């Protein structure tokens, strides 16, 4: 059994930032990373656009990861277990893992920070109809094969879903000589960033159809085509308007799911809205000493926000291990009108500022975001455009918090 103040599960952007945050508070840190190197999904995101908020400059994914990785690897108080897959986690903060170099690993930590990221929703999870040929991939899988392995999955492409990885891959495959025939999005809006729709689709004349889905696929060994159809307001396909598009590739960008499977043996309270843990402003879960940050907590659209969030969690995890994390009375944060979820879901009463992150449920123009406490408005913020694909935030003053909070939008 090895001992660390803070054990971090996952060495992607969240895990690395959490480690640096914990080090700022003087903790000893272990990172358990399942891949051969730190960086997580950033290592396959060779496009630019990372770091605008956090570093004030535009970096590629690997460059963004390197900034954190260099600092982590230079710190001798951070032990990195590579190719280490965690098998179990208990509420007593005992972690069991395996790695080819260390064998069976047992770690006891003062506190644990979850930073496992998320996975892509699969063809099975959306019950894709038709045959089961080669040629159907999640966008991230195609991205890995392209950017890490150097192989292209196909030449004539339809993309289902307009999540950011799908949009990025539309451009990536086009630049490799593939023809992206259509991006079909079942919702009347995209879950991706506006800038990605502009830079990855519009700039390349790739058509994007909203309220449209793939109804079935054809082909025995290799995909030969897909049927697409518009959907009604209950998302049922209008089959009389079905259209066949010959293609050899279908990429799926139909949602990301926080990978919280490790928590099944614990009593960590989960949110049905985010599929991540319910946390307070320190990103502490309902189990004392277990923290959560990054895409395992809720799916982010910008890595910059992940880093910021994980820094908070890392610092707090260190303080928790050292027995100096403030405790006290909670209030709840409840999303209402127009707000799909808000995070953290609970806040301690006290002093200082807290940033509330939230997502809206549809595209809103010229709305005001309101935070109220017991009927009293404690914060108002005017916005130009809010889209479900772009995480919003509003800062509040804790000293104004006397009871449960609601956050909602209203006409300006």
């Amino acid at each position, binding site marked *: 059994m090895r001992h660390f103040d803070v054990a971090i599960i996952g060495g992607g952007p969240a895990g690395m930032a959490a480690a640096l945050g914990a080090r700022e508070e003087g903790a000893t840190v272990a990172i358990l990373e399942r891949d051969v190197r730190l960086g997580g999904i950033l290592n396959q995101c060779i496009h630019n656009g990372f770091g605008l908020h956090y570093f004030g400059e535009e970096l590629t994914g690997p460059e963004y990861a390197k900034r954190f990785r260099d600092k982590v690897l230079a710190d001798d108080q951070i032990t990195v277990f590579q190719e280490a897959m965690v098998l179990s986690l208990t509420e007593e903060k005992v972690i069991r893992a395996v790695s080819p170099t260390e064998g069976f690993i047992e770690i006891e930590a003062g506190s644990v920070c979850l930073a496992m990221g998320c996975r892509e929703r699969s063809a099975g999870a959306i019950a894709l109809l038709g045959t089961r040929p*080669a040629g159907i991939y999640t966008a991230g899988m195609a991205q890995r094969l392209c950017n*890490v*392995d150097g192989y292209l999955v196909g030449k004539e492409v339809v993309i289902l879903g307009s999540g950011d990885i799908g949009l990025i891959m539309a451009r990536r495959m086009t630049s490799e000589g593939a023809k992206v025939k259509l991006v079909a999005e079942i919702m009347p809006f995209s879950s991706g960033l506006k800038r990605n729709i502009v830079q990855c689709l519009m700039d390349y004349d790739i058509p994007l159809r909203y309220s449209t889905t793939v109804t079935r696929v054809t082909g025995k060994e290799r995909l030969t085509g897909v049927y697409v159809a518009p959907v009604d307001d209950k998302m049922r396909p209008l089959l009389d308007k079905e259209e066949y598009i010959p293609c050899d590739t279908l990429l799926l960008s139909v949602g990301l799911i926080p990978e919280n499977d490790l928590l099944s043996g614990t009593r960590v309270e989960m949110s049905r809205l985010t599929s991540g843990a319910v946390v307070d402003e320190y990103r502490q879960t309902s189990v004392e000493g277990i923290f959560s940050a990054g895409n395992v907590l809720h799916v982010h659209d910008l890595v910059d926000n992940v880093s910021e969030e994980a820094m908070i969690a890392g610092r707090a995890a260190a303080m928790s291990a050292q027995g100096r994390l403030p405790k006290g009375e909670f209030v709840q944060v409840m999303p209402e009108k127009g707000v799909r979820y808000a995070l953290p879901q609970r806040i301690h009463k006290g002093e200082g500022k807290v940033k509330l992150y939230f997502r809206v449920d549809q595209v809103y123009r010229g709305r005001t975001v309101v935070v109220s406490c017991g009927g009293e408005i404690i914060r108002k913020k005017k916005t130009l455009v809010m889209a479900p694909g772009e995480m919003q935030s509003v800062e509040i003053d804790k000293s104004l918090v006397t009871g449960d909070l609601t956050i909602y939008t209203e006409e300006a």
Partner: protein
Amino acid sequence: MRYDIIVIGGGVVGTAILRSLSAYRAKILLLEKSSDVATGASRANSGIVHAGYDAESGTKKAYFNVKGAALFPSLSEELHIPYKQVGSLVVAREDGLAALRQLKERGEKNGVKVEILSREEILKLEPNIAPEICYALYAPEAGVVSPYKLTIAQADHAVVNGAEIRLEEKVTAIVPQEGGFMVRTEQGSYFTRYLINAAGAGAVEINAMIGEETPELTHAVGDYYILDNKESGVVNTVVFPLPDEKGKGILVAPTADGNVILGPTSRRVPHEEAEVNAVTAEGLALVREGVNRLIPKVNLKSVIRVYAGTRTATGKDFVIRESDLYKGYFMLLGICSPGLTSAPAIGEYVAEQAAQALSLGKKGKMLPLPEHFRLATAEPLAIATKIEEDRSFGRIVCRCEKVTEGEILRAIHSPLPVRTVDGVKRRVRAGMGRCQGGFCRPRVMEILSREWGIPLSEVRLGEAGSEIAPYEVKDGYETL
């Protein structure tokens, strides 16, 4: 090349026959047109070991079902395959008691342990059963098995005992000759003294090559859902509705590997479409309706895969016999449900027939099939020791199912070697979990590419033409 016996078809029946034959002193070969065994009906079915109350007494179905089911407990240990004797329930509403009694009688005639349960007794086994269900026929000896793992293990065990298997060899012609048959494939010609047609949906074409008439075969496609293993608590036994003329109906059951299976439907398709296996919206809707009548609590949000499988039937009973036209030509036709359950018993029977015809003697003892380490079910100490011994067992490739590189390497280099991503998946479950290969597929491809010395672009999902990443990125592009 000369063989004593050739088996055509690497499904659960063909490999069962091959395995039983490998106990005899004979030169034997199995020819399979696909890239792996278990790619037809043996891959996509419900995986149920039926107790044997359903088949009409005196039929081959009843005989082989009961005999086959009895073999499973020892066979699953010998072949190290997942099998659980979970029992089965045929459930009925208030008005279904008479039909259940009929089934019970049939079961007793077939020598099957069955009893009728009241609602209170059902609830002890299935707390989530639909409120309308009043009675059930309980068969405690029914079970679930992984149908493809059984097929694969039978194939491996046969190879360990000297049998030969040639994959991707589609039979194109059969020429009767003095003392046997010349079997031609796209790759070569093989002479055999005895020939067994176990080609499943393709048995018609094989029969036609030799001029043997085939009774009309019918093909029914069934749609299935597979649920995440976190739903495994929702059902404990195999739960069927009352059977009708189309078959045993849409069931809810745990799988031998810990998931939940829902289905199948039964859609008649023409012979040309027997191996297309497309899932339809109507089919899935029927499954949902059927499941709702059994266990409405089933959570369809936890679906991880939908698929379709085809079963081929002929008339009411299996056809298992030697040809009248040619001595030494043996046919197995329409081995639909309970074909999986029957397969081990059919294998023994057909092997005996062939051995008798050729006066073959038995070998002493069969060599055992070695059992492989599986991290997901191993104890910490065993894991530590194993990684110490071979580092690749500490490298987890498939996160959802906790499959290590070592397990994948063992599978690739098993007695019947594996060259495809689907082949790896069926053996070790890499890619069968909740992310469906989202993370591990490129890694499995990399391992296959390395082990077989082929570029990644040639790594296939399954059959020829199913290359997963067939093109290299533009020249001059630098990878990470």
